[in-house]
C-alpha cells in the first residue's frame, strides 16, 4: 500500500532524529562535581564561584544553573543529580526540614546529616529581611540599630506590601521593638527604592544583600533584638561527594559579608557584568585563585540550546506518537476502555506543568529526563483523542464496505481505517507538537536546558534581549512544527481535493 501508516512513522522519525542526534549520553561522569544554583542572581554568582574554585584546584566541575527553586535543588541533591549548592539556613529549617527557625546550628547539622547532607562552608553573610535608610540620614541622626528608631517617630516608613501583610513582618517587628511610627503604607518594592531616593520616605524593608543597597548608598540597621530569623548562606553537599572537593569548598568559609555579597550582586544585576567573570574576579582577589573564564560564544550557546530543545521535544513527542496512536486505536475498538484512557490522559492534562515537573523529580531526578517524561504525558491526550475521533468519524459506508469484504479487524485498520483517519491523527500530533515546544521552555526550571534557559536568565536580570533569545526561537520552532504538519495534512488528504463528479 502506498499510503500506509509508514508515512506517519516517517513524520514521527523526522522529528525524532534531530532529537536523538542531540541526545548525547545523559549519564554523568561520576568524577565530575555538579554544582546547582537557583534562578536568582546571588545563587548563580555563588554557583559560578564554587565551580570556578573546584576547577582551579584541578577538580572537574559543572554548573547547573537557574534551577526552579528549593524543592528542585533539594530533591536533586538527594537524588545525586547535583553534589552541592548554596542554601539559606532559614529556608532549610522552614521549607525543607519544617523545623523551628530558631533551631541552633549544631542541631541543624545533625538534622541534615540524617538526610545524608553536610555543610561544607558558611559563607559569612545573612540574607534576611532588614530595614534600610539613606546612609547620610542615618549618620546625621546617629541611627545604627533598629532600636534607635524608637527615638525618631517622625521617620516615614515605606514597606513592601508583603512585609506589611506578613505576621512575621511589620506587625511582629513593631511589637518586638515597640516602634512609635504610624501604620506605614504598603508599596511595591522597586517604588520604595525610588521613594527613598527622592526623600518621600525614610525607612524601607529590604533583603540584606540586595544590589540596590550599594547602588542607592543605603545603611542596613542592625537587628539588635534578633527579631528576624537567620538566613545564613551555607554550602550544602551530599555525603559521598569526593573529599578533595569538599575540602576545596571549605575554602569559601567566611569569605563574604553582606556588603561584599551586595556588591557582587550589583556588579551583575546593575552593571550588567557576566556572573562567571564577577565570580572569578572575587576568587582571585580574595583567595588568590586563578580562574579562567570561558569566553561567551553566542552562536555556540544558541546551537546548544536549540539541540537541547529539539531533543526534549523530539524524544517526548516521538514516544507519545508511538504510545498514543495505539491507545487511540484501543479506545476506538473498545469504547468502554476508551473512556478510561481518555479520562486518564485528560487528568494528566489538568496538572500544571511546573507541578508535574516537580512531582516527577523523585523518580527521574532533575535534568532532561523528568522534562521529557512530563512533555510525553502532556502530548498523549491530543493524539489519543484525535486518533479515536478520526477512526470513529469515518463515513459508515466505507467502514461497512471494508467489513463486508471480509477484511479482518487489523487488516481493516491498516489498509483502510488508519489511512483515512490519518488527517485527524496528524492534526492531533500537530496540536501536541505546538503545546510541547512551548511547554518545553519550562524544562529549564529543572535543569533540562533548551530555550527556557535564556528566558529564565533574562527574567532574572531583567534583560529583554536574553528573554527574546529564548522566546523568539521557541515561537519560530512552534510555527515550523505547525507548518510542517499542516503541509503533511494537506498532502495526506490530497485524494479529496479533486472532486470530479
Amino acid at each position: 500500500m502506498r499510503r500506509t501508516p509508514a508515512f506517519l512513522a516517517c513524520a514521527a522519525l523526522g522529528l525524532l532524529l534531530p532529537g536523538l542526534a542531540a541526545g548525547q549520553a545523559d549519564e554523568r561522569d561520576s568524577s565530575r562535581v555538579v554544582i546547582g544554583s537557583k534562578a536568582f542572581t546571588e545563587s548563580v554568582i555563588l554557583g559560578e564561584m564554587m565551580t570556578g574554585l573546584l576547577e582551579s584546584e584541578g577538580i572537574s566541575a559543572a554548573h547547573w544553573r537557574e534551577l526552579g527553586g528549593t524543592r528542585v535543588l533539594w530533591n536533586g541533591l538527594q537524588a545525586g543529580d547535583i553534589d552541592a549548592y548554596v542554601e539559606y539556613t532559614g529556608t532549610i529549617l522552614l521549607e525543607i526540614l519544617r523545623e523551628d527557625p530558631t533551631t541552633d546550628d549544631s542541631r541543624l547539622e545533625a538534622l541534615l546529616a540524617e538526610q545524608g547532607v553536610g555543610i561544607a562552608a558558611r559563607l559569612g553573610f545573612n540574607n534576611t529581611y532588614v530595614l534600610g535608610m539613606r546612609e547620610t540620614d542615618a549618620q546625621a541622626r546617629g541611627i545604627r540599630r533598629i532600636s534607635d528608631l524608637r527615638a525618631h517617630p517622625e521617620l516615614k516608613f515605606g514597606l513592601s506590601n508583603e512585609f506589611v501583610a506578613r505576621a512575621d513582618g511589620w506587625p511582629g517587628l513593631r511589637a518586638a521593638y515597640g516602634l512609635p511610627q504610624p501604620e506605614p503604607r504598603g508599596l511595591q518594592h522597586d517604588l520604595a527604592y525610588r521613594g527613598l531616593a527622592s526623600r518621600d520616605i525614610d525607612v524601607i524593608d529590604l533583603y540584606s544583600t540586595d544590589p540596590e543597597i550599594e547602588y542607592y548608598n543605603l545603611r542596613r540597621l542592625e537587628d539588635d533584638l534578633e527579631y528576624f530569623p537567620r538566613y545564613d548562606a551555607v554550602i550544602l553537599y551530599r555525603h559521598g561527594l569526593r573529599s578533595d572537593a569538599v575540602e576545596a569548598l571549605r575554602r569559601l568559609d567566611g569569605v563574604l559579608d553582606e556588603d561584599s555579597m551586595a556588591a557582587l550582586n550589583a556588579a551583575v544585576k546593575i552593571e550588567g557584568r557576566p556572573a562567571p567573570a564577577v565570580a572569578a574576579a572575587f576568587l582571585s582577589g580574595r583567595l588568590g585563585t586563578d580562574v579562567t573564564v570561558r569566553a561567551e560564544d553566542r552562536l555556540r550557546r544558541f546551537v546548544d540550546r536549540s539541540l537541547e530543545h529539539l531533543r526534549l521535544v523530539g524524544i517526548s513527542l516521538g514516544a507519545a506518537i508511538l504510545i498514543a496512536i495505539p491507545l487511540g486505536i484501543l479506545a476506538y475498538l473498545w469504547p468502554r476502555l476508551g473512556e478510561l484512557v481518555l479520562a486518564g490522559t485528560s487528568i494528566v492534562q489538568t496538572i500544571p506543568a511546573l507541578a508535574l515537573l516537580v512531582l516527577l523529580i523523585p523518580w527521574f531526578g532533575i535534568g532532561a529526563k523528568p522534562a521529557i517524561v512530563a512533555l510525553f504525558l502532556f502530548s498523549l491526550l491530543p493524539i489519543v483523542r484525535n486518533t479515536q475521533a478520526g477512526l470513529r468519524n469515518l463515513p459508515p459506508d466505507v467502514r461497512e464496505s471494508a467489513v463486508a469484504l471480509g477484511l479482518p479487524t487489523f487488516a481493516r485498520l491498516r489498509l483502510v481505517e488508519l489511512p483515512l483517519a490519518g488527517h485527524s491523527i496528524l492534526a492531533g500530533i500537530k496540536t501536541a507538537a505546538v503545546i510541547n515546544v512551548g511547554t518545553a521552555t519550562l524544562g529549564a526550571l529543572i535543569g533540562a536546558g533548551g530555550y527556557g534557559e535564556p528566558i529564565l536568565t533574562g527574567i532574572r536580570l531583567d534583560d529583554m534581549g536574553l528573554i527574546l533569545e529564548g522566546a523568539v526561537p521557541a515561537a519560530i520552532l512552534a510555527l515550523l512544527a505547525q507548518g510542517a504538519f499542516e503541509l503533511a495534512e494537506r498532502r495526506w488528504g490530497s485524494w479529496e481535493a479533486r472532486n470530479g463528479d
Partner: protein
Amino acid sequence: MLTLEEVTLRLPEGFTLERLSFALEPGRTTALVGPSGCGKSTVLRLAAALLLPQSGRVSIGSQALTPRNANTLRHHLGYVLQEGGLFPHMTAGENVTLMARHLRWDASRVHARLKELLALIHLKPDHLARRPASLSGGERQRVSLARALMLDPALLLLDEPLGALDPIVRHELQRELRQLFRALRKSVLFVTHDIAEAGYLADDLILMRDGRIVQRGTLKQLVEAPADAFVSDFVAAQRQLADVLSEDDVVAESA
C-alpha cells in the same frame, strides 16, 4: 444459497424483524422491494453479517453465519452499496484488487481476473488508475461492482445500487445489470424501492412492509393477484409517463 430461518432482530431505534424466513435459489436474481423503513436493507446487512440476529439463523450455502466464520464466508459474497462505499484513498484498481492481494493471490492471477472484469463491467483500463473522487457516479458503481465480483463470489448483494444515479445513467446500467445477471448465473439479492426496476432485473420479487414479507412472486403475480390492498397500492404507485402527460394538460388548461 442464502437462507434466513426464523430470524428475529430488534434494533435500538425501535425497528424490528420478527421471525423472518426465506431462501434464495442458486443462480436466480431476487429483488427485495418495499417502502422506506420496511427492513429490506436490514435483511441485506444480515446476509453480509454486518448485523447479527438475536435469534434464528442466517446461512450462506450450507453454513450458518457466526462471528467466527463471518470473514471467511464473506469471501463468497459480493456487497455493493448505494454510494459504492469505495475507499477514497485508493485508486479504482486498488479498490478492486484489495481483497485478492490481501489473500496473497499472485500478480498474474490478479491481472487475469482484472482483465475479465473490465470486459464484463465495461470499464476502461485508465479508469483503474484514478481515485474514486475523479470518477463519475456511474463509473464508481461499476468499480464497486467489479470489487464485489473480484473473488468470483457465489452470492451478490446489492443495496440500492442505482439509487444515487441520474436517470440516463441509471437506465443504461439497468440494462447492463440485466445482461450481467443473466450471463453470470449467480445468486443475486438486490434492494430497490422501484417496483419497475425490480421487475425488470428480477423474476423473483419479495415485497416487505414493517419487517415482514407481504408477498413473494413474479411482477406479474404481484400485479394480477395482490395479496392485500397494500400490495396493489404499492404496485399502482408507479407514475406512467402517459398519465403524467395527460395530467399536465389538465393543469395547463385550468391555469
